């Protein structure tokens, strides 16, 4: 229980840090890009919304910093992120919620898939030490883990879309199809997401495979694995309950820590494929100086990462009885 | 009687354990009084958890006493304030550690620690002194060995380096914290002999901390027996070993395997373990395992009382030597 509380506390602190960064950065930057952005809103939105923007970006300096800060936090707590410039006059909140499902579907599922597959492959590779899997995979994946995501995306587009014409070149779906839960739409969306998904999968799986393999090798050298062999347990049982369950623990921590990397890659992949997810929208907002939208998306991304980390922590607590006893 | 080299009075050290606001206090050392004379080897015998390592660290000023005082050459350690005085004490009372594999910095040659000791405490002495010290502890040829890295030496050799490091200070008292327990049996004697020799040649006193009663008997002039944070018996070595008064000392001695003793040992298997002394009540801490316990033992903590010439034991039931009144 203490463990859970500590992690929740960490969640809150990090969220607070992200919010504060959002608040401070525009004020710390030289020049005032926000001012030029604000002028585009003038006359188009109501005074309340205007005021909220001023607070968020520190335009009217007669308000004290502290006061502005708390107003800002108050707005965020009520999910008042403002009105988006890019999608004017739609609210930021609404737009974010539109993009979210696309990203969850693409990035969420591929990341989880990559983690699970990578962990399994790493486990088997280490188990069959010296085998084909173990000899061939590590060097290959060491190299692929260094590939820039977006470059692989470009390669994929070139090869599979332009040259071979197998998959769609960009977008989340064909713009001529109506957006609905129809088979036509869903299958179309699916076809559009294959390439981005494969890109993310191929680049991120390498890291999981390698770390799991290394962890498993270390665990296999432990005394309790030798005990399991001495007890005459089946190799399957040893691999799962003795090696696997212990080797995956540091991998879960590693998962949490490398999420930042995965997220950055996902943003670029969405960008290259024009896939209408959170990452793509994030970059659009930067392009358009739509700072209100940008800030909200930044927070969203941070929250997503934090939730994933909490989930990993929860899994660790379930799998490792020692964490529950630690103060 | 002249002032002994080192004297402790009511030496006590407690640690707060458990979670942040817990009231659990671990009584590592409670009310320990003993003296060490010039050129004397005193053995501090006890099992893990008895507090002997804590006493070593109290004497080395790694910890400050919770209460009580340590007097070195008549001056209380608590009066040491300035860096100069601290350095002076550190050079008078250095420590030799238990683990030959972690007591020397693996990144440097073995002469490193000796050099640093000389630089801090006996400036102006360089390479010739390093070689002289290595020779003193039996590491020859000293010139060649001074340039070796720790992983190139055996465990026994590394412990000798540890002694050389201590000797570099030109010390009056060396605290040897289980210096031979991690070495092979055939090597131990060499180091124990070295300690005797250093006492004869240089007049250095030793506080020899160990769980091995037999080695204590081999070199020590007097023996202190610790149990669960208390000093339970003390006296000249031969006397304590041959005529132990405290039931714990008797148990300890009976458990020592002796190749020269006849076979057929089957004492009642005592499955007790020394207690973790957290928030202890009054009463003798050995009472749960003591075959001689009486009602008083449960409620009144026994104090060290004289039971013979220079003989003390903390037990309600122990008998004095013939001719001495039972106090």
């Amino acid at each position, binding site marked *: 229980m203490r463990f859970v509380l500590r992690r929740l506390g960490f969640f809150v602190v990090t969220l607070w840090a992200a919010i504060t960064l959002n608040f401070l950065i525009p004020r710390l930057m030289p020049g005032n890009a*926000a001012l030029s952005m604000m002028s585009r809103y003038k006359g188009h939105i109501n005074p309340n919304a205007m005021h909220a923007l001023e607070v968020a970006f520190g335009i009217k300096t007669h308000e004290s910093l502290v006061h502005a800060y708390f107003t800002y936090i108050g707005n965020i707590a009520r999910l008042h992120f403002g009105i988006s410039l890019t999608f004017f006059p739609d609210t930021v909140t609404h737009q974010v919620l539109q993009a979210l499902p696309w990203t969850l579907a693409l990035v969420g599922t591929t990341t989880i898939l990559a983690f699970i597959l990578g962990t399994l492959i790493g486990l088997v590779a280490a188990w069959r030490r010296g085998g084909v899997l173990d000899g061939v995979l590590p060097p290959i994946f060491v190299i692929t883990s260094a590939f820039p995501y977006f470059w692989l995306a470009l390669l994929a587009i070139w090869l599979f879309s332009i040259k071979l014409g197998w998959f769609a070149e960009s977008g989340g779906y064909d713009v001529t199809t109506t957006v609905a839960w129809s088979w036509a739409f869903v299958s179309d969306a699916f076809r559009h997401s294959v390439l981005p998904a494969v890109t993310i999968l191929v680049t991120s799986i390498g890291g999981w495979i390698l770390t799991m393999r290394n962890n498993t090798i270390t665990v296999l050298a432990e005394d309790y694995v030798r005990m399991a062999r001495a007890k005459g347990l089946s190799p399957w049982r040893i691999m799962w309950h003795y090696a696997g369950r212990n080797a995956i623990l540091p991998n879960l921590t590693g998962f949490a820590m490398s999420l930042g990397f995965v997220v950055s890659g996902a943003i670029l992949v969405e960008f290259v494929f024009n896939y209408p997810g959170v990452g793509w929208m994030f970059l659009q907002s930067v392009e358009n100086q739509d700072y209100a939208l940008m800030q909200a998306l930044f927070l969203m991304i941070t929250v997503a990462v934090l939730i994933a980390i909490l989930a990993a922590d929860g899994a660790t607590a379930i799998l490792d009885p020692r964490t529950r006893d630690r103060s | 009687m002249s002032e002994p080299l080192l004297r402790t009075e009511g030496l006590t050290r407690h640690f707060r354990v458990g979670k942040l606001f817990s009231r659990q206090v671990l009584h590592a050392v409670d009310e320990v009084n003993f003296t060490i004379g010039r050129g004397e080897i005193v053995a501090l015998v006890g099992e893990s958890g008895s507090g002997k390592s804590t006493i070593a660290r109290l004497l080395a000023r790694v910890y400050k006493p919770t209460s009580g005082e340590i007097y070195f050459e008549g001056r209380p350690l608590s009066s040491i304030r300035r860096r100069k005085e601290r350095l002076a004490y550190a050079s008078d009372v250095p420590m030799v550690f238990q683990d030959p594999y*972690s007591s020397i910095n693996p990144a440097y040659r073995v002469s490193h620690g000796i050099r640093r000791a000389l630089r801090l405490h006996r400036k102006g002495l360089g390479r010739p002194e390093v070689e002289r010290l290595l020779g003193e502890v039996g590491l020859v040829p000293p010139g060649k060995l001074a340039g070796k890295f720790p992983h190139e030496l055996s465990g026994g050799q590394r412990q000798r380096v540890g002694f050389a490091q201590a000797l570099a200070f030109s010390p009056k008292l060396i605290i040897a914290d289980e210096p031979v327990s991690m070495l092979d049996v055939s090597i131990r004697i060499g180091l124990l002999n070295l300690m005797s020799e250093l006492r004869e040649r240089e007049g250095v006193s030793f506080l020899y901390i160990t769980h091995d009663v037999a080695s204590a008997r081999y070199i020590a002039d007097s023996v202190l027996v610790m149990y669960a944070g208390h000093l339970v018996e003390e006296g000249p070595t031969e006397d304590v070993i041959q005529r132990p008064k405290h039931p714990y000392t008797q148990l*300890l001695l009976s458990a020592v395997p002796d190749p020269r003793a006849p076979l057929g040992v089957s004492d009642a298997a005592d499955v007790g373990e020394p207690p973790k002394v957290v928030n202890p009540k009054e009463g003798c801490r050995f009472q749960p395992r003591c075959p001689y316990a009486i009602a008083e033992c449960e409620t009144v903590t026994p104090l060290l009382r004289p039971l013979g010439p220079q003989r003390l034991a903390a037990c309600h039931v122990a008998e004095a030597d013939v001719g001495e009144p039972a106090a």
Partner: protein
Amino acid sequence: MTLPSAAEAVVEPLEITRRPGADLWRAVAGNRKAVAGVLLLAFFLVLAIFPGQIAPYSGTAEDFGRGLGPSSAHWFGTTAYGQDVLSQLISGTRQSIIIAFAVGGLATAIAVLVGVSAAYLGGVADGVLSLITDVILVIPIFPLIIVIAAYERNSGLFTLVVVLGALGWSYGARQLRSQTLSLRSRDFLEAARVRGERRFYVIVFEIIPTMTSLIVASFLGAALYAVLFAAGLQFIGLGDPNSQSWGTMLYWAENNEALGAGMVYWAIMPGVCVALLGAAFALLNYAFDEISNPALRLRRLERKAAQELEPAPAVAAAPDSEKILEVRGLSVAYASDDGPVVAVDNVDLDLRRGEFLGIVGESGCGKSTLLYAIARLLGAPLAGEITGGQVLFKGRNMVSMTERELRAIRWREYSVVMQSAMNALNPVLTVEAQMRDALKAHSDLSKREIEKRSKEVLRLVSIDPVHLHSYPHQLSGGMRQRAMIAMALLFTPDLIIMDEPTSALDVVAQRSLMVQIKELQERLGFAVIFVTHDMSLVSHFSDRLLVMYAAQVAEFGKTRQLFDKPLHPYTQGLLEAFPSIRGENMRLVGIPGHPPDLLRPPAGCRFAARCPHAHERCAIAPPLYDVEGDLVRCVLYEHDREAVAAR
């Protein structure tokens, strides 16, 4: 008592021919990934330092035709602005290299500062620093940098380096912190503190030098991250679009729809360069991991054709039914970094039903390897292979049995108790689950019967059955050890093999555990092989004793006989090396010197270098002689009795 002079303690240093610096070079050169990484990196370094000399044209010159395909004049064609792609690639190298090294250096420096200080200072400082580290670790860096760049576009190289460096240190800091924490208990740090070193000195000169491999790994990781992130930022247009770099090339290519327009190389090649430079760092990082973690290195034992393992007969000639175990000529070797090492050399032993055999010897003599070879449990981390001999257990040769056949008899017929039960019990399973594992693997007992049996064996070793539901870390050291013994008794096997089960215990607990083991043995009738370095302890309980020295049997006979009349000079020396609490307190000598290096063992008697009775005959490897039932490998007895066999 008279004192030994310093000369008696003369010790010959171990012969090491290489210095540790040379060690690293050898390790790197021998590792293919490291070599590949170094070569790649060197390649890019050369390009970065000498772009003018290598590139065919200037990177910015727009003199050539636009969008040309590859040709001999332009290996990778030209851009939409008429620049030569190859030249741009080459001149773009410098920026990537600068970013990699500058950010790597900056991030590593901060990581070292924060990580080491946090761990060393502890307390509140540690709490605060760790919190900051974790928060920065979690907040996604790339989006954060984008947010910063959004307000201030066209940031130059310097800003990029500073921002990347200021945000990319957290992973390294975490690792350095945990490494420092584990170092905190190392005595040499305490020694430094105790001798009066200042804190700053300890951190910089005592702690950091021991973590060089971690620092290098941190640097490589940071460099990799810098290269990838910088390229990504430039690609989406947040860098300086006029700079010469791979990322900017990709940006312009994307803006000109290079892929669709057929300018494929322009769009792809900069990415290839990023990937290759990144790969160089990744390879080096991985190789470093392997070099510093020996467990990750796979070494194969090479066997020369002549030494091929002869197919041993499944059932030996005339097995003695009285004997439950017969080991004949067992040899074990493993592959070390410097070549094959024979850890067990031609060992013979036998064991009768219900007999208690002690195997004693010092560290490195091969006793544990022998034990695990008998139990067919070699493998990581011992990593040895049986290279010859037979192990006849109840008449069947275990060496020639397959894993499946072995599995059938494991635990039922023989079980194992290992040293240090903290590690030998699976930390994520309860005691009950671990007993159930074994029971289910070899029997068909119902759930209730399993529980019953588990409680039964716990009671045998005086553990309250309520602890069935505990995890290993919740039990005390002594209890864990006894739980292991209980587990070994689940099937009441005929043989229990014990590897130093009492070494981690205090002397009183040791004694009571030994007594308990002996009692159980007498009650249930199993045979025991007990490996230990503590000869005096085991002597009270063993029927026979086998003394090992330098991978060979030195002496083997009835315990009492061995103690009353030790024949081998090593055994004599060992017995002399135990101070006693009874009898006269005599001066002892011990055995000066140390055992031979098993990589290159001496040709003759292996103990000769330390033996007080050594003479010329010792140059020939002595066989085992039988002296009144006591087997001894010493040339002193060659004339008394006949040799047992030419071994």
